């Protein structure tokens, strides 16, 4: 073997890889792994450590005692220590309790079990036992561990922690039943951290079918890809053989094979072992880190995959919805406003038409001179009423339209201020009195005289033929009759003229009012339309902006995820290369003779 040489070549390489792995473990918050790796690195050279590991009641204590031919470990129902027991060579049997603060308390070997029972659990770090055994004389250390149990218990953690210092492991399982799933998992874990593992199949003295069980265990191990030989042993037979010194019986106990396996571990050049174990530890740590990172990458990937598409889709749907809503409310507003325009105008027209009819009726019969004093105020009042009614109708309708548009836009948005200013009815000028005058006495006298003149003349001439004078009672009577007729005629004509003037004046006034107010109304309606349009357009714009921002954020988020993903992938790649390099180192060291394939 080329111990020294290979040390020179490989040591810096594996140290470097190990340091890198430690750094990686710390970066990823796995202080426990880093700790294990550091312990690998800082282990003092020399001495091979073999850990004995197993579930409870598998005969671990009996096995260790039988290996050493000495009652070192507690067996049976005696309480087993919750700390590792390191068994090494010494001329005289010794036992030392090592406390948490590294204080060392030597105790007599035969009182070890009692002493352990008396100590509070957790006060000890480990127990060191020395026995005068040839097997251990080359610096070999056997480490008995607390039984593996509940994966969360500190006892299990202590037992697994021993792996960090171990060069080889003896797994213990009894031959009464084949390996359970938990035992296979344990073997797998052990094999990833430690290069040399053997399964000691205990209690073969009481298990009639131990050969079949051994076969099944071998099958299970190789199926799980765990490279570990299975050695059936019986501590009972071994102890009986030791008592009688019966070599043949000893051979049957299966222990010679186990001992030679242990001795073989001790003869490996320690530098090789260190290189290989370092490489393995790095690989194990890297594998654990990569697994954790893969898990995270998967989570991130799922986030990206599911969330982003859904979010984008959702935002797209919102935008579509908004667009549809915009068309809807705009159409609605235009239609409703047009309807309102025509309705309001029609309403006003209808109302004024009725007023005009009443005017006509009034002045067809009445004398403006007599009725105007009543008529004027009536007209003003009626007109004001008509205008105001029309206005309030318009304003109600406008309100309603606003509601309708708002609901077309979406219930949750508020309405603009819509209250119309006063109808403006108070601005209507009073109707002016038309210029009409009554038929006065002077006029009447003059008209009567003018009419009587013709009568007097006409009848005077006729009667003058009968020899009467021109002015005679008859002609005078005719004159009077003519005068009366003329006055009556003149009076009727004047009345008609007055009526026509009054009608015209009143109608013109109504027309004026209609014109002014239909304009006013149209303006108000337009104002409403404009206000509604501005309000909802602004809202729509705001919503659109919000959606756009949302979209940007989604895209930005996915970019962030993408970056994280890339980082994770890079990290995984880095660890994978570390894993690979460690593997190469292991192979390099594995070229040494009698090295098991890594």
């Amino acid at each position: 073997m080329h111990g020294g040489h290979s040390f020179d070549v490989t040591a810096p390489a594996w140290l470097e890889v190990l340091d890198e792995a430690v750094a990686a473990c710390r970066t990823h918050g796995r202080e426990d792994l880093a700790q294990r790796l550091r312990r690998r690195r800082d282990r003092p050279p020399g001495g091979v450590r073999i850990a004995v590991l197993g579930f409870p009641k598998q005969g671990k204590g009996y096995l260790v005692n039988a290996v050493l031919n000495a009652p070192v470990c507690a067996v049976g129902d005696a309480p087993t220590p919750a700390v590792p027991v390191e068994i090494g060579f010494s001329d005289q049997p010794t036992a030392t309790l090592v406390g948490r603060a590294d204080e060392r308390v030597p105790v007599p070997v035969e009182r070890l079990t009692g002493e352990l029972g008396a100590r509070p659990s957790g006060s000890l770090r480990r127990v060191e036992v020395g026995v005068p055994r040839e097997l251990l004389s080359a610096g070999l250390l056997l480490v008995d561990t607390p039984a593996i149990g509940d994966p969360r218990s500190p006892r299990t953690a202590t037992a697994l922690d021993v792996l960090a210092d171990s060069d080889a492991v003896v797994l213990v399982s009894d031959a009464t039943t084949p390996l359970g799933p938990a035992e296979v998992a344990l073997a797998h874990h052990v094999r990833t951290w430690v290069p040399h593992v053997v399964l000691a199949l205990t209690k073969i003295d009481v298990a009639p079918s131990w050969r079949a069980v051994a076969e099944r265990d071998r099958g299970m191990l190789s199926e799980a890809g765990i490279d570990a030989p299975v050695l059936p042993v019986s501590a009972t037979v071994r102890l009986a053989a030791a008592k009688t010194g019966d070599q043949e019986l000893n051979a049957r106990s299966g222990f010679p094979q186990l001992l030679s396996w242990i001795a073989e571990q001790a003869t490996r050049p320690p530098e090789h072992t260190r290189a290989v174990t370092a490489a393995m530890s790095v690989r194990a740590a890297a594998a654990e880190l990569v697994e954790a990172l893969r898990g995270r990458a998967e989570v991130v990937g799922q986030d990206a995959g599911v969330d982003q598409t859904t979010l984008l889709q959702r935002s797209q749907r919102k935008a579509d919805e908004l667009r549809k809503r915009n068309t809807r409310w705009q159409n609605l507003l235009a239609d409703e406003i047009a309807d309102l325009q025509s309705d309001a105008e029609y309403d006003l027209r209808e109302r004024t038409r009725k007023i005009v009819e009443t005017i006509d009726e009034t002045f067809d019969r009445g004398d403006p001179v007599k009725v105007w004093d009543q008529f004027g105020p009536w007209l003003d009042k009626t007109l004001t009423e008509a205008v105001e009614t029309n206005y309030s109708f318009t304003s109600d309708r406008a309100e309603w339209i606003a509601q309708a548009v708002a609901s077309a836009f979406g219930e949750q948005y508020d309405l603009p201020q819509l209250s119309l200013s006063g109808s403006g009815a108070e601005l209507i000028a009073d109707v002016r009195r038309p210029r009409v005058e009554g038929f006065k006495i002077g006029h009447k006298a003059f008209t009567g005289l003018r009419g009587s003149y013709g009568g007097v003349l006409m009848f005077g001439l006729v009667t003058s033929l009968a020899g009467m004078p021109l002015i005679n009672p008859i002609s005078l009577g005719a004159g009077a009759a003519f005068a009366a007729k003329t006055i009556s005629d003149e009076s009727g004509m004047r009345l008609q003229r007055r009526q026509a003037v009054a009608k015209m004046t009143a109608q013109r006034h109504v027309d004026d009012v209609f014109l002014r107010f239909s304009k006013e109304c149209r303006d108000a309606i337009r104002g409403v339309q404009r206000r509604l349009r501005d309000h909802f357009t602004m809202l729509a714009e705001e919503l659109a902006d919000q959606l756009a921002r949302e979209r940007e954020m989604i895209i930005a988020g996915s970019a962030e995820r993408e970056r994280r993903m890339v980082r994770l992938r890079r990290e995984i790649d880095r660890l994978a290369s570390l894993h690979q390099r460690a593997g190469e180192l292991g192979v390099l060291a594995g070229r040494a003779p009698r090295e098991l394939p890594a």
Partner: protein
Amino acid sequence: MTEDVRGLLADACAFYRDSPRVSSLREALEHLEEPLRVGVTGAPGTGKSTLTAALGEIRALRDLTLVDDPPAPALTDATVRLLRHLEPDELASAPAAASSAFARQTAVDTVLVLARADETGAGRIDALLTAKQLARRAWRQDPLFSGAQGVIAVAGQLAYGARAFTEDEFELLAAFAAVPREEMERYLLSVDAFTDPAFPGPVSVDTRRSLVTRFGLFGVKLALTLIRTGSDSRVKLSTELVRRSGLGELRDTIAGCFAARAEALKARTAVVRLETVLRTEPRPGSDRLEARVERFAATAHDFRELRLIADIRGGRTALSGEPADEAVRLLGAHGTTAEERLGLDIETDPREIYAAGADAVMRWRHEAERPDRPLAERAAAQVVVRSAEGVLALYG
């Protein structure tokens, strides 16, 4: 009690007739007419089938059905749970404890068995005794185990083999026992040694192998020791092996805690099922059924008796010695008839029974009312009083 529960279940079936869960209620209702069903559970390799077979042939248990490893949803009234070791971890792997309040209050349906007791302590000759002590200690002291009606160490394989002992096998063992012990010892060291071709005598390797497979190496060793120390006939040896295997204790526990309380346990199963349905599918009006379940839980005395028997036997009460024995008897551990509870002969005059019952009530009522005793003790005495009063009620 069964009548009440039958009525309750019938009403529940009617109430939930359109629910998919009604079939589970119907099953429980029908099961009230069937024999008690006891499931034998445990991890693979604990010897469930062997123990089921060994228990199955016992006359005292002929009224109950043993189910070897019942699948999860199957209906069982009680459980015999096999453990390889009395490790807390092993018990922790148990399926979640009963979920409903009533089921927890009346958790009297489990007996734990330290199976393969013959492997304890590397199979030394006192392995069974050690195992028995371990089991007893765990039951008395470990809160994880004390909830069971008993923790019993049983060597199932040995028990099964010993119950079906053949004359040939006895002859064979007797012949081995005749060989001087020192000479035999090396061949009893391991299975391999026992089946070694170098074994002295004319017995073939196959015969020896079948012997060791049937009884285990420990069984063979124990049988030889027993033959040497006086169990000189097949029947004697068989009886002694069965006794030592722990099967007898297990049988008595099952008979006393399960078989004798078959009606109560079946009623319990039905009510637990009903409670589960009520909890998972509450409906308007189901509170009336709930109230009836509660009333049942409050009045069911059997469970309190069983719980107290376990506590007294497990040493978790202040009772010991003579009073403890009497209390356990009154609670019905040795049988639930009036005579058995009072420890009288079967043909006793009813007046005498009444007098004895009245006496027991008086004494235990006194215990229940002693102000100088802690509350727990008085409560326990109260349960005993109630049991004794139940006896009086039969004759009142």
